[in-house]
């Protein structure tokens, strides 16, 4: 009886689901429903099936370059990439078996055969997708010894270090630059074994050709692109990651401040952030020098004569209250106003507006709303 009711429930569930233009697919024996245009990778992720990949980033269009996400689909004679293949009705997918593992291992070996494999001194050790895959599949590149790239590290700008030798040509940097930032700073250049991401005519990155948003760094799965300012200051596992909201403008991007010994050493993306999905601009990613700057103003300053003199908060606030009160008494409420900064949070801006309207009883309130 119980079983029959369950069956009925299931069939009703499927009918309802199917009527909403959902389709049924099976991944590793798990039946699930998905939208018609969902890729296999997306559906697998949703139901908790892990498929390895290097060139996929949810901020980017599916690419199908690294080939690691290949899966077997029943009735198809060759493996298909999960990241670009859309699910179709009644598709039956196997994501892991001996032959797939062997093909993936081969691909990892090929990548490692043109990689310095200097994990011991690499910035990304512990946070490197290629390293993890090499560990998981138990392979190195030694079977396919041959020519390796031997190119110098490129540090032609203050923010981004580029070690071409560590590049695996996943194209994430070039795609984020062109699809998301639309800056067109870098693109794949050259052909065959010598193709690599680079600027036009291999020119150094300057403000003429690059926004220095560091988006390319944020998506690089290996140590090819790293934040220059944070190099040598600690690897991922040494750093405490503190999630915060950017204080530069009103957009409210989230990111992680990476802190070691009480000092911010770099900023990393939070790809789950609701506002920015991990995307940042130059200020959010690289404009954190002020935090530990010697010149940073840490207390209020009161101008006495020609000079600013450090003061306590109470002292400063009392002075402001006194001055505002006397001005309002003398010239009326409309004679004062407030101008808030877009570097304040929405809540702070709201408070100021409320304060001016209710305490000052003035409508003179504005915000720069720009940086």
């Amino acid at each position: 009886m119980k079983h029959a009711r369950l069956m009925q429930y299931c069939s009703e569930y499927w009918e309802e689901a199917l009527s909403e233009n959902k389709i049924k697919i099976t991944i590793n024996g798990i039946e699930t429903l998905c939208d018609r245009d969902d890729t296999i990778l997306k559906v697998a992720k949703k139901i908790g099936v892990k498929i390895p990949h290097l060139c996929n980033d949810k901020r980017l269009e599916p690419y199908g370059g690294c080939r690691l996400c290949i899966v077997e689909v029943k009735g198809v004679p060759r493996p298909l990439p999960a990241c670009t293949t859309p699910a179709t009705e009644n598709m039956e997918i196997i994501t892991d078996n001996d032959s797939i593992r062997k093909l993936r291992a081969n691909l990892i070996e090929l990548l490692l055969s043109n990689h310095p494999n200097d994990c011991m001194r690499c910035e990304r050790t512990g946070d490197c997708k290629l390293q993890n895959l090499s560990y998981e599949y138990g392979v190195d590149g030694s079977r396919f010894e041959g020519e390796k790239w031997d190119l110098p590290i490129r540090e032609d700008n203050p923010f981004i270090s580029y070690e071409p030798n560590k590049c695996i040509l996943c194209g994430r940097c070039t795609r984020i630059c062109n699809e998301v930032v639309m800056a067109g700073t870098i693109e794949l250049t050259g052909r065959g074994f010598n193709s690599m991401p680079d600027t036009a005519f291999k020119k150094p990155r300057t403000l003429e050709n690059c926004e220095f948003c560091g988006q390319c760094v944020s998506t690089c799965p290996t140590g090819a692109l790293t934040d220059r300012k944070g190099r040598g200051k600690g690897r991922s596992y040494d750093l405490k990651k503190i999630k915060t909201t950017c204080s530069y403008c009103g957009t409210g991007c989230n990111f992680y401040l990476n802190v070691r010994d009480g000092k911010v050493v770099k900023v990393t993306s939070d790809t789950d952030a609701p506002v920015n999905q991990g995307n940042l601009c130059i200020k959010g990613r690289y404009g954190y020098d002020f935090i530990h700057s010697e010149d940073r103003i840490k207390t209020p300053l009161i101008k006495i004569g020609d000079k600013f003199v450090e003061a306590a908060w109470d002292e400063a606030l009392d002075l402001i209250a006194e001055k505002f009160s006397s001005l309002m008494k003398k010239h009326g409420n409309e004679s004062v106003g407030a101008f808030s900064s877009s570097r304040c949070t929405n809540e702070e801006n709201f408070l100021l507006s409320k304060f001016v309207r209710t305490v000052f009883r003035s409508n003179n309130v504005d915000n720069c709303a720009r940086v």
Partner: protein
Amino acid sequence: MPAKKTAKKADIKDLVIRVCVGTGGLAAGSQEVMDEFGSQLKSHGIKAEIVKKCVNKTGCRGFCAKDVLADVILNDKSETYQLLTPEMVSRIVEEHIVNGSPVKEWLVGPEYHAFHDKQTKILLKQCGHIDPEDIDAYIKIGGYEGARKIFSLEPSEVIEEIRASGLRGRGGAGFLTGLKWELCSKAEGSPKYIICNADEGDPGAFMDRSVIEGNPHSVIEGMVIGGYAIGANYGYVYIRAEYPLAIQRLKIAISDARKKGFLGENIFKTKFDFDIKIKEGAGAFICGEETALIASIEGKRGMPRAKPPFPAHKGLWGKPTVINNVETLSTLPTIITQGAKWFSSIGTEKSKGTKVFAITGKIKNTGLIEVPMGMSLREIVYDIGGGCEKNCALKAVQTGGPSGGCIPASHIDMPVDYESLMAIGSMMGSGGMVVMDDTTCMVDMAKFFLSFTQNESCGKCTPCRIGTKRMLEILTRITNGKGREGDIELLLELGNSIKLTSLCGLGMSAPNPVLSTIRFFRDEYEAHIRDGICPAAVCKALRIYTVSVELCKMCGKCFKACPSAAIAWEKKQPAKIDKGKCIKCGACYEACPFNAIL
């Protein structure tokens, strides 16, 4: 024989001289030959405008080995001259045109007729006959009749006709053209596009170039038919910039077709608009792959993308697009005029019609041929191609260009069609056919093709970018005499994995030359690795040069040629090579006039 003066007047009316001025002809000096014909006729007192009328340029007729070729048609009697130079023209004009007796020793021989007689020419029929820069010449032979005819049909009827003909794409994959059109015509989205893929890149293949150079209007007509069938008002021709003559002729043809109302608005006085734009490729082999080609037209880096979605659903600018090869498109007018039934009567059950092949390599009659699908390889190589050069033994035939595979001589009787070629591990490809004899080293040959694909890989996917590089390194090591036990197995493992995991057709087929040569010539690989011998004596590093004492005439030429002082020689003494000092450069081998260096 009539008197000289009267003969000249009567004959000139019916005189036609056709000189082959395709790229091959031009390289052999056909423009000079044509000019010489003109000036010689003028010097015989014939008016300039008549000379202009009767001296015609045509496209390539296929037999490039004998260029410059020219037909002299006098009173409906055609004679063909071969290997012409401008110096020969005055005698031909004097003896043949003026006096009526052809210069027999310069006429084409039996191999010219053997080369042509076994062919079935549909596509190349008019190449070599009509002036490609004259739209009226094309119209005169029934050109644009196919395009005119389709407007009395519904687009779906046109698609059905092409479907019924069984025509398959001539670019390599062999997808049914009618089916491709149907998918695109049913796809949602507007506007739709039709693209002509003229980015012919296989080494040694030049059929698309020849068709465009010899009969550009057939391509335009094919595009009009395709455009009408799928509902596209715009067409692109994606053509390599390395084909300047083809581009020039296509431009002339497009502008002439516009003037006649065959392109532009309300073509053929119907309500249908259709126009064509030429997009010149920048010289990347990969741009022949349809999704890379689309990216290139869109102004992006030419890299393939994953399919699905197929271009028929999401192609150029994200709109439904059909991409057909030059050969496919220029076959269409004939199918429309002669009917699907006629076309499908040619060829085999699954491969219909004819296919153009570029036969090159160690074969007597190199050139461009068109044969019905299913013709045996033997007929192609021996009857049309005339067999191997110097009567050497045939070893293998490579079909499908760098992506194809080798067919060993033991399979010479196999039919040449899509299925049979796939079954043997090769492919039709664009129709390259390289003939190899026993002086070809199969390992070296595989290395050559693989180095081509490696250089032309776009770099997008891992197996093609690094995998082919590693295979190439292993092959190089083998040909350098440094092969190791297990190398063949490594090549097989890598090759199969590249085939399975690559993104596009280039990577999927790149290992074919290696895999098929291992399949049929594994012993050659083993000889290189285990015995340190190159059986075809091609791989220099594996050669050991010795002097045959019997053949040596003691001239000392090898001694003088040797750059590493490895040869000891004194007057009246046979030379001797010191193996320790020999750098295997082969200079002595080349220098010896008596073939005494072995």
